[in-house]
């Protein structure tokens, strides 16, 4: 292992966590912010803060998540400890059996959870809970939270610890955004940007280490998508994929070999303009999944050696209809191997936010398109897809993306009075392409 300048990644991480906790406990700042790149231990930070808060015997601490899934995941991580965890939820919600078994209190009302040290719920649920006021709260995934969601809950909380990943997808609306754009504090801004605007002197700290991404990915993702750089928590070579030798006549085998060797593979199909459910891309992705499952790949990491099975692989796409076609194709392959359908996770970028896998196969959002719309160019979408993996990421695309980026003029309006996005999607796409092309495998 090569020596690094400065403190070890673990020490650098712990120093930030300690400082954040001390400031939060001291109650001098109304807003404390934490930038957390992908896999930088955001959940462990929230867990640590919650545990220390409860141990201190302080009043109840609410935690605001953005989705039910995030709330459930957080509750799983918090349960089984000495302090009492409550989960506030809507009437249509079904509690997970193992969490009930683990002693988590579930209720539709705040009053019923009064005995809990920590109460977790999504922002929308907090907005519907009429009673209650709390000294302080933790807001998780504050970059996914829309400013108007914060508006609906903020007055319940005296001060907040806001934690989030600035590389996430920007909030969007199905309504007419022209109604509310061009003014500060737009409901479509992120809650993080709103807090920064209204509390310019609030301390914001960045978690410096990604524990999820291997060195091959941390540098690339940090360079393309982040203003505040971060590093990988593991050293070069600490994580490895071993695949038994396979025939290099098949593109899928070559792609897997490249991914195992370098952490990346860029599987390129011939250039064509196609509907977004491009059947050949579906076939290539299903074939890659099948190849990986059949290859008997083993992964070495900090914890030891584990086989790569269907549960360690995920496929990330841009649209729901792509998800449908890919799931159908993969499930057929799984059935042929006698595996249950759905054992490989296939989902859209926004639903993969916050999740982690050993290997990820990404359907490039610009593949096969004639245009490059803001939706498909968005830096956050690509960033989420390319930062979910612990070992390797395989990107599948039609050729011609560079030409498409060159040819397609930006048509998005500039909103006067609003901050432009910190990372430009067009530029991020080009930076990424420069690096991916070194790992090109013709499909």
């Amino acid at each position, binding site marked *: 292992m090569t020596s690094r300048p400065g403190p070890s990644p673990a020490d650098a991480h712990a120093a930030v966590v300690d400082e954040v906790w001390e400031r939060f406990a001291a109650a001098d700042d*109304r*807003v404390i912010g934490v930038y957390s790149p992908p896999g930088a231990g955001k959940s462990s930070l929230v867990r640590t803060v919650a545990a220390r808060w409860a141990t201190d015997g302080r009043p109840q601490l609410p935690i605001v998540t953005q989705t039910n899934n995030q709330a459930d995941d957080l509750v799983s991580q918090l349960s089984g400890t000495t302090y009492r965890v409550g989960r506030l939820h809507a009437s249509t919600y*079904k509690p997970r*059996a193992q969490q009930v078994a683990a002693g988590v209190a579930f209720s539709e009302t705040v009053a019923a959870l009064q005995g809990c040290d920590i109460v977790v719920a999504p922002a929308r649920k907090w*907005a*519907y809970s009429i009673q209650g006021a709390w000294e302080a709260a933790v807001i998780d995934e504050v970059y996914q939270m829309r*400013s*108007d969601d*914060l*508006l*609906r809950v*903020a*007055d319940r909380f005296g001060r*907040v610890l806001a934690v989030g990943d600035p590389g996430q997808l920007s909030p969007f*609306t*199905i*309504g*007419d*955004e*022209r*109604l*509310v754009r061009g*003014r*500060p*504090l*737009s*409901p*479509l801004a992120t*809650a993080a940007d*709103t*807090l920064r*605007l*209204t*509390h*310019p002197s609030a301390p914001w700290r960045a978690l410096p280490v990604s524990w999820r991404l291997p060195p091959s990915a941390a540098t690339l993702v940090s360079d393309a998508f982040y203003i505040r750089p971060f590093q990988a928590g593991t050293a070069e070579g600490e994580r490895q994929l071993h695949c038994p030798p396979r025939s290099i006549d098949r593109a899928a085998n070559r792609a897997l070999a490249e991914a195992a060797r370098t952490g990346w593979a860029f599987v390129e199909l011939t250039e064509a303009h196609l*509907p977004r*459910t491009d059947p050949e891309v579906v076939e290539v992705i299903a074939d890659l999944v099948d190849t990986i499952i059949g290859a008997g790949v083993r992964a070495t990491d900090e914890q030891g050696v584990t086989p790569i099975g269907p549960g360690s692989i995920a496929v990330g796409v841009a649209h*729901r*209809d792509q*998800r*449908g*076609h890919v*799931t*159908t194709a993969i*499930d*057929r392959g799984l*059935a042929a191997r006698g595996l249950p*359908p*759905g054992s490989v996770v296939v989902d859209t970028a926004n639903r993969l936010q916050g999740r982690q896998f050993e290997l990820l196969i990404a359907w490039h959002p610009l593949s096969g398109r004639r245009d490059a719309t803001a939706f498909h160019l968005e830096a956050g979408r690509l960033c989420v897809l390319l930062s979910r993996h612990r070992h390797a990421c395989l990107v599948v695309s039609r050729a011609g993306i560079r030409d498409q980026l060159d040819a397609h003029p930006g048509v998005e309006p500039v909103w006067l009075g609003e901050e432009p996005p910190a990372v430009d999607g067009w530029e991020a796409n080009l930076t990424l392409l420069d690096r991916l092309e070194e790992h090109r495998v013709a499909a």
Partner: protein
Amino acid sequence: MDPYLAYQRLVAAETHTAQPVASCRHVHLSTQPLVLCAYHLAGDEGAPVAFLYGRSPDAANLVVVGEPRNRSLRFRMLERLAADVERYLGRFWSRRAVVDDRGRQKYDPDGRPRLLAIDAPQLIVPNSGTADWLTTLARSTIWLRTDGDYPVDAVLPRFGAHLTHLTKRRATGGSANIVAATELLDLHWVTGQTDAEDANLATRLSWIDPNWLEPSWFSAATSVRGLDAIAAARLAEVLPGAGPVPDPTWDVNELEPAVNTYNRAVSAGVDPAAAVEAVTDAAADALAPTWAATWRAIELSRGLPEAASVSRRWELDRQAWTWHIGRVDAERVWFRRFRTAIQSARLLAQSEAAAATLAADMAFDDPLVMARAVADGMAIEGIVIERDDTHRRPGPSARRMVTRPLIRLRPHEDCLQPIGTTLTWSTNTGVELEITNIADDGVVTLTVTAGMRSPLPEVGDDVCLAAFSPPRYYPDTLPTDVPWTHRLPAPPDEGVA
């Protein structure tokens, strides 16, 4: 673009005929709309040149300004337009009492009897550009003063207030107070040309009705009858622009000489009313095809039967209009220059609810719109092959079993929705089903989760199940006061002047 629309566009291009993408009309069309076509100076949205408007195709009023850069002349013209629009709006002042099922008067929360306007106004403009420009026109007139150095007639700020209300309705979505003819056509037909070409009302209309062109707009040698869509669209391309920005060639060849004629005549002492004739003629000729096209678009759309939810959306327009005229009568028509964070959030929430409602309503009202969802994988069509009304599964409390009928469906295409998705039956949106299994052979197993007391799909039925449902309404959770997170810090002290 979704696959069904792409396919219909290809068919349109192949057959040289516009293709229907709706089987009914999804927009309320008033029996007494006010059609309004307009030009403003290129590069100056605040300088209108001409308005052609009226309530029937053969009763067009035209107002023009001889020198569009002269502000006094501009406001005199706008006052004439404003007076006519106000007269039109005045036709929609009658309200009647809202009664419940048993004929008893309903009351508002403040104790006053609830009223509803019998009808509401509808402005129909040629294209989205003109509809959007009405917002600018509203903003440029509502704040004008009736006193001071440059007073305007009180009708102008009133006109601005009415227009502000109507344009705000349009922005919130699902409203028919302001309708753009291009959008009307867009909802119901696709053409074989590009989106940019479709923005031109004249060429778009030529695809749907190639016979709408008038011989008088072209040279005597040009034949305008018996053309196919592409030939008609080619001809229509050379017609003057539909506004609000005129063609640059028209600016140079018609408008500039006419304005120069006006200025020369006025400085030579000619009566301005007579001197303006050159501008009047130029504008009347240029706007005539757009006027005809807008009315033809209305006529074509009126030919479609009205979709089921249209009257419900129009009632929302009528409710909003009732509220507006109530404020007018009470002399309380105030609008904010800038919205607070809470007002912005409320407006966006309304816009989102309206957009979701409109999209779902259109799909459940109209099988052709639903076909797009099917092609997109957002809805599933198939034959019911089995139904088990006695099927039981664990209830919500997991302690006892409850009856939840089971349905097996053989879909026409692969089901692209994941297991666990809730689907809504298009025939009766009260019936909801959850996908519980998708077998290797594609057969989908569904459990009825809502509406099991109503008639369910029968074995042999060809059904359509959508992965979306008519939106449900939840109470607004916005606070009354701006919270501490949304108050901007005081700007730094700028020092003493």
